[in-house]
């Protein structure tokens, strides 16, 4: 197993899976709502603390999978329990673990019914998400991938808004439909290689047709998850109906599953097909950037606005991935983190307004500047970050992606630039309405400024906005080697591109 650097001593990765699940088990024994809140906060904080040594212990000089664990699971089917992380998954794991305590805090008063069950869903969700980023065995991966759907479905269907049934079923069916083909592709790969071990699938000589079919199967599953235009319509529906914590998890972590899948599977396993389909995917990315921007501009519902802005931002991420050069991919990886931080924070902000006014309409939140000065300060910084204002985190990410895109093709990059302008347009439109407002606020008496709990929820994210924006090096340095290795895997097959290009119509 020369892909892995096995972990000696404490099994951190397993602990990250087990601690939330154990926490969820303990919750089953209690019925106290306030205990459930404190307990979940404790468990998620412990998980976050456990994940931090991963960063310090991480060896940025190797592209191998670190902190790896390997146990036989179902020997009859050659299925193993294999975990490991590299520079691509490390930051996503940290993002997930650090975000979850904030989600708990955001649900403190928001969730009033079935608190215990809600917290159990959150913990199972955390374990499944972390597992997806860590799994190196395809069966394990697929299990966890599907396992994520259930708690998320419940979060929307039970604690969601008025159209929760519609939104949750749509979310579930849409993503499941994509995943079914993923299972077919995984089985095809197993039949070809005789192993479920993901790194073993990379760099194999697959036939062109096989690559194309597998790539398309992967692509559909991941594109729905990202979501890429035109497979995105489940996202606004789900976001609008989900509770705040659900929206945050959905936007910050679940969307990254799709782009993570592109990086982990599409690029290294089917490199030839990747190169063949690159132009189409770039076109879809640019279309998503512009389409998301335009649609966001027309929204009067804050959550929908941010949901559509996610379509645009994730368009930038897929653009960065498929320009297939260092700046593009590193920018995309960083932008995945940035989007998690910024959009997560924006959903938290909207949730805080919703808790007060019970409305997500921009008009009901107009002119907040006078009543909630601390709130609008946070909101302004996160909005600026969302439109990639220089000095904030998204600027670094989008800048790297655009540099990569310009290296690849001036036309593609030129088409994506208006997306950045649109982002400024819809974010500033929202800011202008919410802070100053064209008409006086209908309910000024209920607008109390942020409580300490809410400030504690938002402040860490603001720190990251400026930390990444002003000093991105600690975040970029861990990904250099893995990204270089990934790009080497893709470009090894460059000669084949010609034949593939001529074979396809």
């Amino acid at each position, binding site marked *: 197993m020369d892909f892995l650097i096995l972990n000696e001593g404490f099994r951190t990765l397993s602990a990250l899976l087990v601690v939330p699940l154990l926490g969820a088990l303990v919750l089953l024994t209690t019925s106290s709502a306030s205990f459930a809140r404190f307990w979940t906060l404790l468990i998620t904080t412990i998980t976050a603390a456990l994940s931090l040594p991963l960063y310090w212990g991480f060896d940025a000089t190797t592209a191998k999978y670190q902190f790896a664990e390997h146990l036989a699971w179902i020997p009859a089917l050659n299925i193993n329990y294999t975990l490991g992380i590299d520079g691509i998954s490390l930051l996503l794991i940290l993002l997930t673990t650090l975000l979850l305590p904030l989600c708990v805090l955001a649900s403190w008063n928001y969730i009033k019914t079935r608190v215990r069950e809600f917290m159990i869903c959150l913990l199972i969700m955390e374990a499944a998400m972390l597992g997806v980023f860590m799994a190196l065995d395809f069966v394990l991966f697929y299990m966890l991938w599907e396992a994520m759907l259930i708690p998320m479905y419940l979060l929307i269907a039970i604690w969601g808004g008025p159209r929760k049934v519609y939104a949750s079923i*749509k979310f579930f*069916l*849409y993503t499941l439909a994509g995943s079914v083909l993923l299972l077919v592709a995984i089985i095809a790969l197993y039949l070809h290689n005789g192993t479920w071990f993901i790194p073993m699938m990379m760099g194999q000589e697959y036939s062109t047709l096989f690559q194309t079919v597998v790539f398309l199967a992967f692509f559909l599953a991941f594109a729905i998850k990202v979501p890429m235009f*035109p497979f*995105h*319509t*489940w996202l*606004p529906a789900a976001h609008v109906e989900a509770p705040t914590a659900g929206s945050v998890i959905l936007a910050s972590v679940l969307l990254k599953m799709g782009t993570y899948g592109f990086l982990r599977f599409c690029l290294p396993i089917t490199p030839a097909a990747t190169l063949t389909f690159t132009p189409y995917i770039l076109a879809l990315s640019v279309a998503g950037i512009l*389409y998301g921007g*335009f*649609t*966001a*501009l*027309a*929204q009067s519902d804050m959550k929908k606005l941010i949901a*559509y802005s996610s379509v645009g931002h994730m368009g930038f991420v897929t653009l960065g991935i498929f320009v297939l050069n260092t700046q593009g991919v590193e920018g995309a990886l960083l932008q995945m983190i940035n989007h998690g931080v910024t959009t997560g924070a924006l959903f938290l902000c909207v949730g805080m307004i919703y808790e007060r006014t019970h409305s997500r309409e921009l008009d009901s939140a107009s002119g907040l500047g006078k009543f909630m000065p601390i709130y609008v300060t946070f909101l302004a910084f996160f909005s600026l970050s969302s439109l990639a204002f220089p000095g904030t985190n998204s600027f670094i990410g989008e800048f790297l992606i655009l540099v990569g895109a310009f290296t690849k093709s001036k036309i593609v990059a030129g088409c994506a630039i208006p997306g950045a302008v649109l982002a400024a*347009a819809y974010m500033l439109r929202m800011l202008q309405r919410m802070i100053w407002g064209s008409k006086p606020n209908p309910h000024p008496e209920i607008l109390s400024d942020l409580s300490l709990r809410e400030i504690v929820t938002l402040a860490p994210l603001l720190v990251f906005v400026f930390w990444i924006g002003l000093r991105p090096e600690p975040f970029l340095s861990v990904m250099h080697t893995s990204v270089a290795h990934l790009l080497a895997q893709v470009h090894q097959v460059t000669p084949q591109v010609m034949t593939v290009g001529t074979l396809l119509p």
Partner: protein
Amino acid sequence: MINNLWVHPTLVLLFGALLMPLVPRVLKKAYLLLVPVLAFASVLHMTNGTFGVVSFLDWTLTFGRVDALAKIFAYIMTLMCAIGTIYGMHVKNDWEHMVAWTYVAGSLGVIFCGDYLVLFLFWEIMAFSSVFLVWFRGRKESLFAGYRYLLVHTAGGLILLAGIVLRFQATGGDLSFGPIGVHTPQLYTWLIMIGFILNAAVPPFHAWLPDAYGEATVTGAVFMCAFTTKTAVYALARGFAGMEILVPLGVCMALYGVVYAVLENDARRLLAYHIISQVGYMVAGVGIGTPLAINGACAHAFAHILYKGLLFMGTGSVLYMTGKSKFSELGGLYKKMPMAFVFTLIGGLSISAFPLFSGFVSKSMIVAAGFEEHNYWAGFLLTLASAGTFLHTGLKVPYFIWFGKNHCSQETWDKAADPPWNMQVAMLIASVLCIFIGSYTPYLYNMLPHQEAAVAYSKVVYSSYHLSESLQILLFTAVGFFLLIKKLAPEPTISIDLDWFYRMGGRGFLRLAKGPIQWVDTGVSEFYRLLGLIPLMTTARFSSWFDWHGIDGVVDGTASGVRGLGTVLKRLQSGQLQYTIFYAVTLLALFLAAYVLA
């Protein structure tokens, strides 16, 4: 060579201003006293030398050049800062104290700076902080006057900057601030000089001064009358000693200010015009440029800051108590405000160069230097202006406010009383100093930059010839005043000065802005709206519509299609055996038929 003991008074005042909001209310008065006293102490303990040298980019900036010339100005400015702060101690608005201190800090920064970059920095700090002293008055007129003040000073600052940059290039990177070479003036010399004399309020660049000072707050005017013009005099004395053009300019100023002061109806505007007149003496002194003349300019600046502050405090206390500052609305207040009268009179006698008062020992020095240099016409004209000074400030101000015909309305009369104790204390300190300087000459003369000239002059200042000459002029002026008192009676008029051009210029600019520029701007906005905003929002709304009806229509349509199909198929599963058999047989028959026929 940074001396650990050297503390820049600018820093003391700036930190003092910054910490002001944190000081609890009970300690506020003590704090207001402490900070200026600390600044004053830091000046007292200074030794000559160069301190505070900082490297910034490629330049070496000098923040602390200390010599006799700088010290005498810093001494009186920090002292005046303390007096002015005591005078304004009753002011509750922290911001007013903070900007006043920042303003003084700017002045002191200029006094101690060693190069033009630092000078420019503090020069602008002065302008941008002092304008608030006008705005805090809160009247509509103060707002406009403040803007005019700011615009003039910004323009002056730009001219100064242009001169600095030109000089930097012409001399190959020399930024040091010292004698500029007045005998071979270049374009940059003129530009820098214009920048300086604009702040010194030399006509035709003077109209900002009465305009702004007349509108400033009561305390603000006390500060403003002391610092901007005197800092400019310092800058001129440092760089332009012996620049001959300054002599006629200074003489013109002295006369010009007197004429307008005699005409003026508003007490504080009168005093403001009178600043122009008095600064004229100093500018002329700098222009003469001999050691005696420079001494005279410094001494006069020193004395002037005190007595002009005193006069502004006196009339300011009238304004503070009654709300009026126009002669035509005052008069006969002696019974109600005796202390304010005494203090103002001391200021008036000082400014009129009455023997034993401070003006006598300073102003005469410049006049003497003029005669000594055989610049007779300058000497005579300055003497003439001196007579005018006595006429309007020594006599007119006290007479028409405290004596003369009572123009007070009943309300004004009821409100009139001596001002609060802190104002009286401040005026007392200034009055004592005015008399002390006039009576005990070594106190001031020992601080002057050219000691030999000062020592020589101190022997003749109280000579019988000098005394009798001064007293004659004063006496005849007094006689003239009481003969002409009808003509001098105040009328509620506004004297038209060059500020008319500022107003007209401003109006013209406004018309240009409202007319053509606004038209173009409206056109561009309309263009932007028609071709930018409307299509943008239309596209946005369309994509939103398309998203829900187009793409989502397909998705939801597929879903409901599948559900519909399911509903149809469900009917086949009716659970009744005969139908199932019927369907199965039919299907079988169809298959068989297809098989046979194929």
